[in-house]
């Protein structure tokens, strides 16, 4: 059985569910089709549970799945409002049913005006579904396409003929004809509302996942310094998400086997019972340590933005990093670890900024101060990350201090938010610092950050 043989509604649902962000493999699609052959579509609850067990495999996915299912298998707006409207406007119903139907139907089907007049909601709903499919509603992606699709669907249902009929009736001018035209007008209005509703629902179904993904892609590659305050909250969510992914990827790898090296002591001990004949072999493996991190962040000017996100990223990774210590500097250096650990992030960042004031950067003195205060804590297991644009306002860069840090630390990583083109231009000392660093990277977007931290975890 292949996915192609799955019934049409299931295929459309799978497409929608994938769009909404559920990851559904082809094999799972086949399973879903086989399961539906068993249980059928008759019982909505069973249908939901069945597809749920096959398609959604984490708690997050279950929530997403429930939403999508409710949207997709929701009864049409027409059939839903049927009873309500019948109850609320009985006086409107009566004259309608009394009015004489006119034969304008082409083929066997009734024309739109007849459907509107008889208010046959089930038939209208079916006609709308058909017109929508012809119009290719599943390709809708943007809010701006909404009106286009509404118009297209209504035209395909035969709106133009109705309008002509209304014009003709108004031209005739008799009271009966005018009343009929007005009734049609109201019917068209209702149809328009229902169609708009229908299109909006489909927009939600088909476009939600993609617009979300698109936004995320844009935000990930946007320069952090250019973000508007509204986007900040989204960015925080995104950072947490990215950090969680990195954490789960690297948390598992705690030790790596050194292939081919026999652990003789362990092997002998394990095989004591058999007189030392090595039936069971034990191999050496290397325990991978969590990186110990010291982060020095420039908090002046535009670099402050990047600093904020670097710190957020690092502190979201406490599962796979150990002993994170963070420092803020502009013309002097202070340790900010406990502020960041104690306070919620939003206020902590603001606190750090006020503590530092807005002094202009002086890399030389900041580095010297770091050496005086914290150099004894830098060990051969420490990774030091310095984030800054290396623009020291023509002060002494003190590369000798950086040299000493580099010699003591396991690794020294310099992240610069400026593009390579501007390194070394003006008062930038980047090229003076670079020789002492084990890694120098441009870092101005979330993607850069993710890559750098991924590398950090990779090469333990």
């Amino acid at each position, binding site marked *: 059985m292949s996915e192609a043989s799955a019934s049409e509604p299931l295929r459309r649902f799978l497409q929608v569910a994938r769009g909404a962000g559920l*990851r559904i*493999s082809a*094999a*799972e699609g086949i*399973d879903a089709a*086989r*399961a539906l052959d*068993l*249980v059928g579509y008759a019982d909505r*609850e*069973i249908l939901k*549970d*069945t597809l*749920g*067990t*096959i398609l*959604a*495999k*984490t*708690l997050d996915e*279950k929530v997403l799945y429930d939403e999508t299912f409710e949207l997709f298998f929701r009864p049409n707006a027409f059939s839903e409002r049927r009873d309500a409207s019948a109850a609320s406007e009985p006086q409107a119903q009566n004259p309608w049913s009394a009015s004489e139907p006119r034969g304008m139907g082409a083929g066997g089907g009734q024309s739109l005006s007849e459907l509107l007049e008889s208010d046959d909601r089930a038939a209208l709903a079916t006609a709308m579904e058909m017109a929508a499919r012809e119009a290719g509603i599943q390709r809708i992606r943007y809010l701006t396409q909404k009106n286009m699709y509404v118009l297209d669907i209504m035209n395909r249902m035969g709106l133009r003929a109705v309008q002509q009929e209304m014009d003709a009736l108004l031209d005739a001018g008799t009271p009966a004809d005018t009343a009929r035209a007005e009734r049609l007008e109201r019917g068209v209005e209702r149809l328009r509302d229902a169609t708009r509703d229908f299109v909006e629902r489909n927009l939600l179904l088909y476009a939600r996942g993609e617009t979300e993904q698109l936004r995320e892609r844009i935000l990930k590659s946007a320069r952090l310094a250019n973000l508007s305050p509204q986007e900040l909250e989204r960015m925080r969510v995104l950072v947490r998400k990215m950090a969680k992914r990195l954490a*789960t990827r690297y*948390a*598992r790898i705690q030790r790596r086997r050194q292939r081919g090296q026999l652990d003789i002591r362990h092997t002998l001990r394990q095989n004591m*019972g*058999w007189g030392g*004949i090595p*039936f*069971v072999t034990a191999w050496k493996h290397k325990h991978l340590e969590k990186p110990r991190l010291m982060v020095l962040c420039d908090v002046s000017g535009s670099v402050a933005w990047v600093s904020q996100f670097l710190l957020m990223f690092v502190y979201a990774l406490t599962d796979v990093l150990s002993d994170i210590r963070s420092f803020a500097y502009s013309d002097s250096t202070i340790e900010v670890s406990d502020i960041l650990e104690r306070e919620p992030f939003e206020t902590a960042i603001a606190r750090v900024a006020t503590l530092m004031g807005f002094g202009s950067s002086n890399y030389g003195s900041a580095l010297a101060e770091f050496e005086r205060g914290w150099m004894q804590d830098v060990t051969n297991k420490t990774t030091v990350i310095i984030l800054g644009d290396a623009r020291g306002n023509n002060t002494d860069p003190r590369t000798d201090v950086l040299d000493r840090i580099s010699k003591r630390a396991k690794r020294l990583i310099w992240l610069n938010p400026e593009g390579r083109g501007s390194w070394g231009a003006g008062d930038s000392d980047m090229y003076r610092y670079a020789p002492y660093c084990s890694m120098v990277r441009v870092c101005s977007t979330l993607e850069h950050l993710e890559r750098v931290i991924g590398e950090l975890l990779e090469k333990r």
Partner: protein
Amino acid sequence: MERSETEEPQRVIASIDEVDAGLEAAGYIASRRISTAMFIAHHLRKPILVEGPAGVGKTELAKSVASWLMLPLIRIQCYEGLDEAKALYEWKYGKQLLYTQILRDKVGSMIGEEEDLRSAIEKLHSFGDVFFSKRFLEPRPLLRALEQPHGAVLLIDEIDKSDQEFEAFLLEILSDYQVTIPEIGSVVAVVPPVVLLTSNSTRDLGDALKRRCLHLHIGFPDEKLESRIISSRVPGIDARLLAQLVSFVQQLRTLDLKKLPSVSESIDWAKVLVLMHSAVLTEELVRDTLNVLLKFESDIEAAGKRVAELTRKAQQALA
């Protein structure tokens, strides 16, 4: 999958209601979702991955399925460091050693007849595999489950506690119901077992594993289901007490606690209350027995402040 319906001694379950009834007869009150998942799993021949908080009856489900289908339950408890030697098979080293010792003379005399080393080795080769045959194989739970003549219920408990390597190693069993033993070859299940895996989500499981399983999340039951579960497990309980008890527990779950009381705890509590011959819930009674429901000192303290109010609300619950 080809061998499906032809040679089956295994029964075929006709409907979801049959699952419901079968599990109920085995003493397990299943929600509709659980029965549906079991039904689908049975027909698609897929393992079920059951997730949910501790004590909602994940392990119990496997036991009940086994007793309903009258199949042996084979259980494997996962833990860090569990490997295939403990889960699948192990060579009986002792026996191999013993046999080689006993047979030493025999082997010696047989090889002794050969004149040079080369032909002695040739000779050894010709019967060398004897010591790596099924006779010297110690089957562990997974292999036993595959070898059951009428099928079995295989429960792989707390899969999230095992290492990632073990998870990968399970994939062959889960998708094809067979395992490969390098010295012997593939062992295919006589009758595919019903496989249930449970997880407390202490870590995320791999996608490959999830793709091969159906996923069932069992949460805390609603008031109605919980009353049914408790009355089936504690048959002697008074209807009014039951209603009050369930209402109390349900309210307790809305509090912000470290560990919410689960179904197993409410069953225990019900048993305690029945033992104490109490007919209604009183504040004093609740205070005295709260440690049955809550397992952390801080939780008992936090809930203690609200006991009066919660009990009052619970007392209004109707049987």
